[in-house]
């Protein structure tokens, strides 16, 4: 199994732990990932409001590069995953947008064909690798670890190609395969406020608080995420969000938990980058780790 890999900007910055754990996990599963040559920012949700059409062109460049590699394109970052998918949709739905994008690609000597399959790691784990293969590779089961799976918005909305939009379960199934216990988490697809914590702090903070409170209320010992921004928001502002009850709950990328189970060494899975040390929890739960 081999995939083109599109990290996106965050996975090189605040989301490094995501990239490290992701690569480790797929290595352990014997899946080859080849980083996309000279990729550029997908434009995220921010560029659109500045220049809608340009944002499609930016995404298209990556898609065109990937198409040349002739493999499915894995996009772990929820925002990237959305934007790349969306671009393909819009170019199809609006011929005039397609025309503009084509011109732009032409100008930089890239083929117009951007019809590469954009896929999320969870999609690949479930449908290509398969849960059985995954189970087989588990060396340190996460037995008894209560996890709240937080999907956020953009992995499932608006294009949930491989999971249910209103009640996604892909991450649950993958983590259960590693022996973890998934707690009831009614806000699993609610919004974390995205960049709002930076721009309208108090509002962003309220959204973050809601997510943390629910996780705590439902007895979660860790929160698993699929998006660098979600992970950052939930982890970085726990003190700020704390009110009467103080929040102290590890917020990890689902790939980090996978890595743990697959026997990847902690600091090869980016745990050293967490603000909250995971070891006491693992000790308490008697979960072995490398």
């Amino acid at each position: 199994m081999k995939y083109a890999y599109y990290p996106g900007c965050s996975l090189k910055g605040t989301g490094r732990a995501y990239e490290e754990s992701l690569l480790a996990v797929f290595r352990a599963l014997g899946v080859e990932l080849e980083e996309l040559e000279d990729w550029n920012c997908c434009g995220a949700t921010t560029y659109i409001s500045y220049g809608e059409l340009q944002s499609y062109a930016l995404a298209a460049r990556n898609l065109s590069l990937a198409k040349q590699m002739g493999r499915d394109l894995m996009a772990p970052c929820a925002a990237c995953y959305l934007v790349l998918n969306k671009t393909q949709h819009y170019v199809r739905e609006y011929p005039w947008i397609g025309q503009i994008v084509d011109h732009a690609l032409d100008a930089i000597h890239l083929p117009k064909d951007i019809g590469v399959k954009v896929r999320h790691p969870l999609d690949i784990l479930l449908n290509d690798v398969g849960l059985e293969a995954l189970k087989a590779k588990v060396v340190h089961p996460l037995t008894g670890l209560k996890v709240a799976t937080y999907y956020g918005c953009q992995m499932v909305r608006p294009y949930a190609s491989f999971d249910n939009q209103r009640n996604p379960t892909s991450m649950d199934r993958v983590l259960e395969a590693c022996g973890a216990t998934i707690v009831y988490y009614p806000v699993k697809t609610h919004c974390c406020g995205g960049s709002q914590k930076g721009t309208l702090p108090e509002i962003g903070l309220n959204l973050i608080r809601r997510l943390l409170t629910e996780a705590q209320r439902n007895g979660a010992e860790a929160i698993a995420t699929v998006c660098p921004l979600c992970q950052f928001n939930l982890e970085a502002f726990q003190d700020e969000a704390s009110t009467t009850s103080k929040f102290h709950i590890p917020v990890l990328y689902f790939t980090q938990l996978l890595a743990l189970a697959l026997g990847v060494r902690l600091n090869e899975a980016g745990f050293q980058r967490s603000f909250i040390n995971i070891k006491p929890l693992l000790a308490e739960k008697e979960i072995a780790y490398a």
Partner: protein
Amino acid sequence: MKLKRVVKVEAERDPAFALWISQTVGGERIRHCLQCGLCSGSCPLSLYMDYTPRRLMHLSREGFKEEVLSSYTIWLCTSCYACMVECPKKINITQLMYALKTRAMQEHFYPKRFAIPVLAREFSRMIRGSGRITESRLVMRVFVKTAIWRLLGFSKLGLRLFRTGRMRLAREKVEKRSDIVTLLNVVDTTRKELAR
């Protein structure tokens, strides 16, 4: 206390605006809006909005440009797509919000030093320059332009990020930066041609 007339006479309506919105990407179906309010109900931010998304849809399609573009609602949208997924008339509300943001920025319908448009501008500049985003630099640029003091509040967190290696000042960049610039320019020129 200053009282102003609130009754709207038809001449204050901007039909061109209403037409424009119904022609933007995602705006095609705005006229189908039933005003059921499901968008407002499903929106995580609506509790902070001056106009709920539902009301914004109505004001937009009726052409009340002032009200729409000066509304906080468009800036509060985090593009979580909850409204769009639930909308019974399949209206692409999130996309509409982008269009409105763009328009509001073009016509400067927002408070001075308002962070969100600044972020968008800086974001695009950075991409034009390097083709990728270096979060550390972006954050700093935005704070400098909006609320420098917030940098201080942020510094503690910043420090932790540096310590954990999650904030690197090293500039992320694409090799073929000229390609990015060309790409963006060509889009603009082609759009103008198509418009003609």
